């Protein structure tokens, strides 16, 4: 039977009334807790009560695992549960940092850790600088009134939507011995190149693929930053006869600096944490030429038949500390440039 408009209105009123009653009931129930709590704690301390649920989630899922990881870093052996693991204090860290010459991984007890550290340094430097540069150029181009601007904005963002594993598999297919790129090279009369069997080539491609996969995201952030710069500033600059280069140096770059800092921090953290794409693309090889820190941690703790959880935890504590220092430094520099701008 079809409902008449009156019936619908009555239904809505009933539903609205029901919702209001449930809401009132919930608030009354909450009041039973909050009112005595407010009397007990006082109004000013009530803020802590409100953030308590969030803090609990943070403590259980972030803080506790972090502390547990630090404890694992001070234990050894193949047992999984902490209570079954012998406590060894700082022995894992001592082993990790024992080197005759820090520039030569072969002189270190844990040579793979230092190879991974060196590879990560190279990867982060070139990937982050390349990423920022390419994203900046792309965002500036996309900020202009070019033909099919919407289409190009979508195209550059598309790889961000792909799973990192899919990205790596696509590029593996392109770069392998019988891959698309070598077919093209042979097609134009050149010799094929074993990109994945040469350390330098492999690292170069790992960096390029990573930039390709993620630049869309950072381009979008920078584009938003560019669009927030008032057009009047450029108009005023044009009246004063500033060239395009001068406008970029003295208007665009300083006003974009806070956004650039966000991009820098985000891309740096992402680059240091890089694992999935590289692991699928090269497996860390050839040899250990593209093994990054997170892969070292994974391989030491999980990717082997004789896991060394303690050493993996020690390496991850080290990585966390480096990341923390780098982020704090960047934030400090960022605040400095913001003050300078003000």
């Amino acid at each position, binding site marked *: 039977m079809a409902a008449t408009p009156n019936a619908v209105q009555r239904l809505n009123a009933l539903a609205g009334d029901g919702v209001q009653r449930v809401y009132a009931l919930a608030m009354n129930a909450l009041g039973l807790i909050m009112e005595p709590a407010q009397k007990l704690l006082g109004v000013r301390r009530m803020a802590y009560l409100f953030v308590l649920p969030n803090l609990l989630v943070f403590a259980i899922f972030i803080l506790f695992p972090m502390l547990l990881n630090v404890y694992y870093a001070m234990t*050894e*052996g193949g047992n*999984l549960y902490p209570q079954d693991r012998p406590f060894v204090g700082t022995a894992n860290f001592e082993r990790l940092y024992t080197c005759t010459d820090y520039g030569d991984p072969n002189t270190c007890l844990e040579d793979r850790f230092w*190879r991974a550290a060196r590879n990560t340094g190279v990867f982060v430097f070139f990937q982050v600088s390349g990423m920022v540069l390419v994203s900046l150029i792309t965002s500036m181009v996309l900020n202009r009134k070019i033909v099919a601007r919407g289409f190009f904005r979508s195209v550059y963002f598309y790889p961000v939507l792909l799973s990192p594993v899919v990205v790596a598999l696509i590029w593996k297919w392109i770069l392998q011995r019988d891959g698309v790129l070598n077919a093209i090279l042979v097609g134009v009369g050149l010799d094929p190149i*074993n990109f994945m069997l040469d350390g330098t080539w492999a690292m170069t491609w790992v960096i390029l693929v990573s930039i390709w996969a993620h630049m869309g995201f950072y381009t979008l952030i920078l584009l938003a930053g560019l669009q927030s710069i008032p057009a009047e500033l450029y108009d005023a600059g044009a009246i004063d006869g500033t060239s395009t280069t001068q406008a970029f140096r003295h208007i665009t770059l300083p006003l974009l600096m806070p956004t650039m800092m966000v991009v820098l921090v985000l891309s740096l953290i992402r680059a240091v944490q890089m694992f999935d794409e590289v692991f699928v693309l090269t*497996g860390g*090889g050839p*040899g250990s030429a593209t093994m990054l820190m997170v892969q070292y941690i994974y391989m030491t703790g999980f990717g082997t*038949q*004789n896991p060394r959880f303690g050493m993996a935890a020690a390496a991850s504590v080290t990585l966390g500390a480096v990341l923390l220092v780098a982020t704090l430094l960047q934030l400090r520099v960022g605040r400095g440039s913001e003050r300078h701008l003000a």
Partner: protein
Amino acid sequence: MFHRRSLATLFATLLVGLLVGSALAQVELRMTWYDDGAEGVVMREILDRFEAANPDVKVVMDTVPYSSGILESLPLQLASGQGPDIARVTNLGGLSQYYLDLRPYLSDPGYWDENFGPFLDWMRPAGSSAIPGFMTQLTVTGPFINATLFEQAGIPVPEGPTSWVEWAAVTRQVAAATGTPFAMVMDRTGHRLAGPAISQGAQFLDADGRPAIDDPGMRYMMQLMIDWHADGTMNPDVWIGSAGSYAAGNEFFVNAQVVLYMSGSWQVGQFTNLIGDAFDWVVVPNPCGPAACTGMPGGAGVVAIADTDHPAEVARVMEFIAQEENLAEFYGRSLFIPGHLGLASSGVDFATDSPLAAAALTAFSQQVPLLHPTAYAMQAYPFNFVVFNAIRDRLTQVYVGELTLDQALERIQADIDEALREAGAN
């Protein structure tokens, strides 16, 4: 009307109750499995028969990739107590701490001692009389060659004792004559390298039974591998291009991109299906060195896991699969060398009309008497995977110039010593 509706409701309630009741009464066991070929299909059929005869037990097969599933994930699952009830493993001794001793649950433990006795020692600590499981196959490592390529090149296949250097030379000639990209390929594992190294005189274990890697035999074999990767004899995609873990070279052989493939008997079933008669694939005797002409024994076993909540049901499943007629069917249809002494002596009727497969299985069987005692000792050594993995990873670093051979040998020994120390095996 009311009467009919009530009856229908009653019937539906009873039916649902019956279904829920039987589902609740049914024990579900999980078996972690991997496939070399299509043997999982045969195992599933055997399990289906078990389930038909035992409706109170359901066995779910979780088929996983060998490298990531069996070698990497399973040990972690077992360590965390979250493992399956039954698993198919190749690291027989290394995971023995997690195995269930089936002996108290078996109706006839004598059958197991009699038919699986020597292989049970591979699965249990020294001196233990536990029965953790049985072998799904015995394996022997050895080389396959693409005989059609030899024929096309007009080069005869070497006969009689032949060294690795001679095989490398002749397969290079065949590859050059036929335009085949590579002469040889070897699975990326220290296990596959062990046979050739023992043939050259590598000892692996010292007088106290501890791993000792650096000796002239090992150096010689490693240097050959380094040279073959440098001069393009060996396909570099497997050892150099697959960092971090085990990698098989079977795809290159199946696609006729190599002349010789160093692998083992477990490939026979797969090659029968994938190559068929597209070209003649032939097993040749393990190449010789001054010490032996040996491959490595090995195999995979199905083991019961100690953390299971249903040990009695697990034992029933294991007893059913391990029955002689079921294993005869499994080995025969999977083209696996039997790991059951009764079947090994009575013979298995291999379900193939491929003369290539039959010849390959015969050739591998003929390799068994030639296996060197050191090869058996290494197979029985519970931390053999530590040794093999260290050799695999460090040797690859030599190929790409990260280490010299001397440095690699030092690192291999250091890696093994550190792993044994952490495992409390010193």
